[in-house]
């Protein structure tokens, strides 16, 4: 899958869970910078991403994610 397709799919999930669009999908974007992306919504976002892409994250992979760029790269790798 192309990177921009992955980014768009994640954006739709974020809008759906967080109910706003006040963020830019930059590689450097982190959860802390996004209004409402807290420990509660994080669980839902991760699960929605896994379902949307048909993938399963390993715990160590999740714990290394610190920005959008990492997340997109990881999804791309997992999709092979």
């Amino acid at each position: 899958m192309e990177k921009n397709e992955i980014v768009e799919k994640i954006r739709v999930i974020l809008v759906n869970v967080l109910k706003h669009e006040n963020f830019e999908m930059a590689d450097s974007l982190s959860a802390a910078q996004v209004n409402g992306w807290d420990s509660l919504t994080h669980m839902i976002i991760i699960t929605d991403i896994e379902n949307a892409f048909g993938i399963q994250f390993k715990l160590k992979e999740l714990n290394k994610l610190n920005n959008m760029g990492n997340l997109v790269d990881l999804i791309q790798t997992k999709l092979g």
Partner: protein
Amino acid sequence: MSGYLFRKAVADDIPFLADTVVAAEKSGSDKLSYCTLFNLPEEKARGFIKSMFEEEIDGCEFSVSSFIVAEYNGKPVAAFGGWVETINEDNMPSNMLKSNLISFTFGKEALAFLKTKAAAIAELVSEREPLALQLEYLYVSDEHRGKGLSNQLITELEKAAAAIYPAVSKVQVQVYSNNDGAIAVYKKNGFHIGRTYKASNDEVLQLLPWNEKYIMEKELKK
């Protein structure tokens, strides 16, 4: 305090730590959030809590390494967790480590159920202050209450935190505002109420022990 041994928790303590989490999380009520928010029976939730401890992730409330255990006659009788926020392998907020553990462990069905309850509890979600010692999950078994074990566990956690991060200058703990016993223990140990979080949605009382919580805190002397 004679007869009690205080030590860092080890992997063999995981069943006791799971009991500690279940008892502390209920906070004197019959509401266990790991059941109510994920539609799980208590034994299943307890099993997942054990699994999360077994992942050996340091720096959060499901880290064996966070806990101090009080032992009596060779058996654990009390425990309390504490870690310095964001001092961990990946400098991750502990709440994110916890959320990752839950996402990884609880399974799709449980997470889908959480989605239906998230809005009701959203106002009680609080993030933790970086570099502050965070305390979580205090439990003292019935027959060992009133012996000062809580005070000693707090002291031990403060010592352990200072050994890992000498600049630690604050300690915080979250407590439901109706938990008079715990609030009294923390006040006696120098804590005061910092912030209050209140949920306006009545459904919260079906899901959590109470609809209001305090962040209690104190400065640590150098």
